[in-house]
C-alpha cells in the first residue's frame, strides 16, 4: 500500500485518497476551435510512462483537497508532492 504525504495533512494511508490520473492536462484554450485529432489528444491520449509520473490525488477522506505527486510507476517510490497548479519541484524532475 502506498503512503502518501498530503501537503496539508501529512503522511496518510493510500485508502484515504482517490487517484486523479495524469497531472497537467489542461483544457486547451479555444476548445471550440479544436479539430478532432487535437480533441482526442486532450481527452484520451496519455503519457503512461514506466518511471517518473506526474499525477493528481485528492484526499477524499481527509481535507478533500487536490494536489500533485511525482511517483515512479516502476518502483512506486514517491519523489515529491506539490500544490495543484505549481510546476513539479526541480529536484524531483
Amino acid at each position, binding site marked *: 500500500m502506498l503512503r502518501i504525504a498530503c501537503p496539508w495533512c501529512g503522511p496518510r494511508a493510500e485508502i484515504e485518497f482517490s487517484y486523479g490520473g495524469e497531472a497537467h492536462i489542461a483544457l486547451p484554450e479555444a476548445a471550440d476551435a479544436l479539430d478532432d485529432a487535437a480533441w482526442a489528444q486532450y481527452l484520451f491520449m496519455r*503519457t*503512461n510512462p514506466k518511471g517518473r509520473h506526474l499525477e493528481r490525488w485528492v484526499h477524499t477522506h481527509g481535507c478533500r483537497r487536490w494536489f500533485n505527486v511525482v511517483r515512479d510507476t516502476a518502483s512506486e517510490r514517491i519523489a515529491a508532492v506539490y500544490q495543484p497548479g505549481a510546476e513539479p519541484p526541480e529536484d524531483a524532475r
Partner: protein
Amino acid sequence: MNRYSIFTLARNALSHHEHWQRAWRSPEPQRRYDVVIVGGGGHGLATAYYLAKEHGVRSIAVLERGLIGLGNSGRNTTIVRSNYLWDESAHLYEHSLKLWEGLSRRLNFNVMFSQRGVLNLAHNLHDLRELRRRVNANRLNAIDSDILTTQEVQRMVPALNCAADARYPVLGASLQRRGGTARHDAVVWGFARAADALGVDIIQNCEVTAIRQRDRRVTGVETTRGSIAADKLGVVVAGHASVLAQMAEIRLPIESHPLQALVSEPIKPVLDTVVMSNAVHVYVSQSDKGELVIGAGIDAYNSYSQRGSFPVVEASVSALVELFPSFRRLKMLRQWAGIVDVCPDASPIISKTPVRGLYFNCGWGTGGFKATPGSGHVFAHTIARDEPHALNAAFALERFTTGALVDEHGAAAVAH
C-alpha cells in the same frame, strides 16, 4: 514436431518421461525477418501461429523480453466468455470463443478448455435490468445467454448465499453456458509449439529497446540481443504498450494498472462454474487442483510494478465471504498482480498506426485472455493484408478521433 497422443504418452512412460522432444526450439535471432512480433504472451504467439498457418508467411520471429507466458497470459484467472453488449465486441469475442472450441485438437495440445458456464450475479434491480439488456443483445447476436432466477442460481451454486437477508442478495444472474475456463500456461505453450513447428523463431530473453523507422516506415528493432530488421512489426505487449508506442513516437489512450488475483489452499470440489459479481468487485472459480481462483478490480493508480495494494484484495475477499460464507475459514496461498493495459472504452485496439508496417494489438485490459485465439487470428490478418479483418475494423486507433467508441464497461466490469 512429434504429435502428442496416448501412444506417445505410453511410450515415454516406459523411459520415465526423460526423452520427450523439446516443445519448441531456442534459435539464435536472425538478422532479418519478414514479420517480427514483439511480446511472447498468448496473443503474440497466436498471431505468429496464424500468420504462418493461414497467411503463408515464412519468416517470422516472436521476441520476448523474459520467458514466454510470464506476463498477463500466465497471471490471469482464465475466464472465457463472449457475452459482450455491442455487436462489434460480441462478434469479436464470439469469434474467439468458437476458436477455443476445438483448439486443443487443432494445436495437438490440451488447453483444458472447460465450458463450465459463467454466471454474472445481480444484487439489485438495476443490475438485473442491465443483465437482461445484455442477455437480449447477446441473443440477437446468436450468443447463448440466459437469465436465471434466484432459485435457479441457488440450485446451480449451493454454496452461494442466496438468502433474502444476505448482505448482497442475489436477485438473479445471467448465464453463458458455453463460457468457462482454460489452462493459461497451456494456451501459451500450445501456440508456441504449433508456431515453432511452422518455422516461427521464438526468441526469449530478448527485449526490444528501440523501433527503427525511415520516413515513417518501420525498418526493424533494436534489442538486447542485437538489431533485427523487419518489414513488418506487430506489437502485442499488454501493459507495456505505451512504452513501445513511445519508441515509435505514438501516443496511445492507454493507462497501465495492476490487476490482482489470489488462490486459496486446495479444497474438495465445491464450485463447478464461474461466479462473477460486478457490483461487489469479485469473481471466483475452482481450479482442477481444488484451489479457489479469486479475482478483484484494478488498482486505481498507474503502475508497472506487478504488485498492487492490499486494500483491493481485502475488499474482494470481504465481498467473497459475504457471497460464500463457507469460504470464511480458508487460507489464501498466493497473491500476485499483472499489469493490464486499460483503454477508456474497455475495448481493445487492434490497429494499423501512423507508421507504415507497424501494428499494435493492445488495450485488452482486464479481459483479454478469453480473446487469445481470436485476437491472434484477426491481428495476423491485419498484418498480412495491411488492412483490418472485418471483425477488428471497429477497433482501430482512429475511433478515439472519430468518437466511435465501443463502450464495454458494463460487460467488462470487474473484469474478465
